[in-house]
């Protein structure tokens, strides 16, 4: 359980060395005759707020939509097999984009920021 505790809130780093999110929640498989096992990391997309007061979660979902998130607001799920190594950060094998980790950032860029002159691409 100590490992699980240490994992929570760690930064996530993709193969390009880009810091792209945090471990907001964990998917855990409990076994009858063995210790619990982490099966996936959940990040962003209301992973934290859905465990908080309903009003906080509603506010979080609303903010996601205001920032351009389309469809259901849900966390990015990174299967444990995609975790390459753990040090002070969680290093993953897939890029931030492929893992869906920067979805809110991309949504906000598309909906708002790219319309401002000088925003770049």
């Amino acid at each position, binding site marked *: 359980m100590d490992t699980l505790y240490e994992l*929570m*809130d*760690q*930064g*996530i780093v993709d193969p390009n060395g*880009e*810091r*792209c*999110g*945090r471990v*907001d929640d964990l998917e855990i498989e409990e076994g009858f005759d063995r210790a619990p096992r982490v099966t996936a990391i959940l*990040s*962003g997309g209301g992973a*934290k707020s859905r465990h908080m007061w309903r009003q906080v979660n509603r506010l979080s979902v609303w903010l996601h939509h205001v*920032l351009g998130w389309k469809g259901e607001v849900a966390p990015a799920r990174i299967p444990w097999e995609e975790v390459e190594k753990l040090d*002070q950060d969680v290093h993953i094998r897939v890029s*931030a984009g492929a893992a869906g980790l*920067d979805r*809110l*950032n*991309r949504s*906000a*860029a598309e909906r*708002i*920021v*790219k319309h*401002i002159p*000088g*925003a*770049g*691409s």
Partner: protein
Amino acid sequence: MKKLKDIALGIITAIGGFIDAGAIVSSSQAGAQFRFSLLWVVVLSFFTITLYVEMAARVAISTRRALFDAVRERLGFRIALLPLVTICLVNWLTIAAEIAGMAYALQMLTGWSYLAWAIPVTLLLWLILWKASFSLVENGSSLLGLFILVFVWSAFALHPPWHEIAGTMWKPDAHGQGFALYGYSALALIGAYASPYQMLFYSSGAIEEEWDESYRWPNRIIAFVGNLFGACVAAAIIIVGAMVLNPHGVKVEQFSGASLGPNLALGAKGLWLFVAGLFFCSMAAGLETALSGSYAVAEYFGWHWKKDEPPARSALFHLAYMGFLIASAGLVLTTLDPIKVTETAMVFNAILLPFTLIPLMLVAGDKRYARPPLTNGRFARIAGWALAALLTIAAPIGIVLYFVTGGGG
């Protein structure tokens, strides 16, 4: 050579961090009301801000993480939310104070109301943050803020009574105005000189500029020398206030009240240097405060951020400072007394300072984060916890004093 340049520019930026709109108003007011008897606060604030900004950058060098990144990891989502919310609150108030400072400088220059200037100066802050590189934001505006050295010039021109200053600066003396107001003013000064945004900005700046362990000593030199110069300017503002405003019973009820010292000491050139100093010091602090708020939010949520990348790459980071600027401009446009807003911002900076200092101490003292030799040594540990405890005790007293004095009277 690069390090020497970094040290020189860092010192100038640290002076800018020490002196902003709030520091100009609070220091002038302190001199006007209590003569030299609040000068000890400058010394205390110098030690406080030097200790903690050096520590914040040291943590960044060791962990390759900016302050709030490490705080979120160390304290977790829920507990770290408290310092985040307090930072956002004081930054909102502080940016409003800086916008008011810039707008008031333009009012003194043009005669048009500061309210007419609030939106143009906010747009200017946004434009600089949007287009300029990190080093230009960090160094350019602080360099222009050196106009505020007019107070040092004025102080020497007034031939200060050094013996009286040395004899009275350590003695609490309310000068018949009541110790509630004296305590409140002391707290406002601490908040003006030692704001949480300085630690956040300095720490995130160390990440932006990719400081490594070779910056251990440059970090110390910048923190010490830069803040020492800043403290000298702050002391000069109090001395000028004591020598010019106090004998005439002038209270600093507008930004223009603070200009009387340089104006009387140096004539018209003193006034115009003051206007330039107020404008650029407020601008530098406004830029740094807005950016530091963005850094805190982005680091807390783990968003991608890098000032020198195209904004579309760090969209949420850029939207965060836009949010701060809009909210702060809105506060200025409510027509609340800008001096009251500034003083309130400074007092809340001090009251809420422990919410930044305690997480910083926890991270800097944890060998899993700040690895030896970059972890807190004995001096930093004892002095850091002692100052954090002192400010934690002062915080509830500050809230009481805020209501007792009616926000400074």
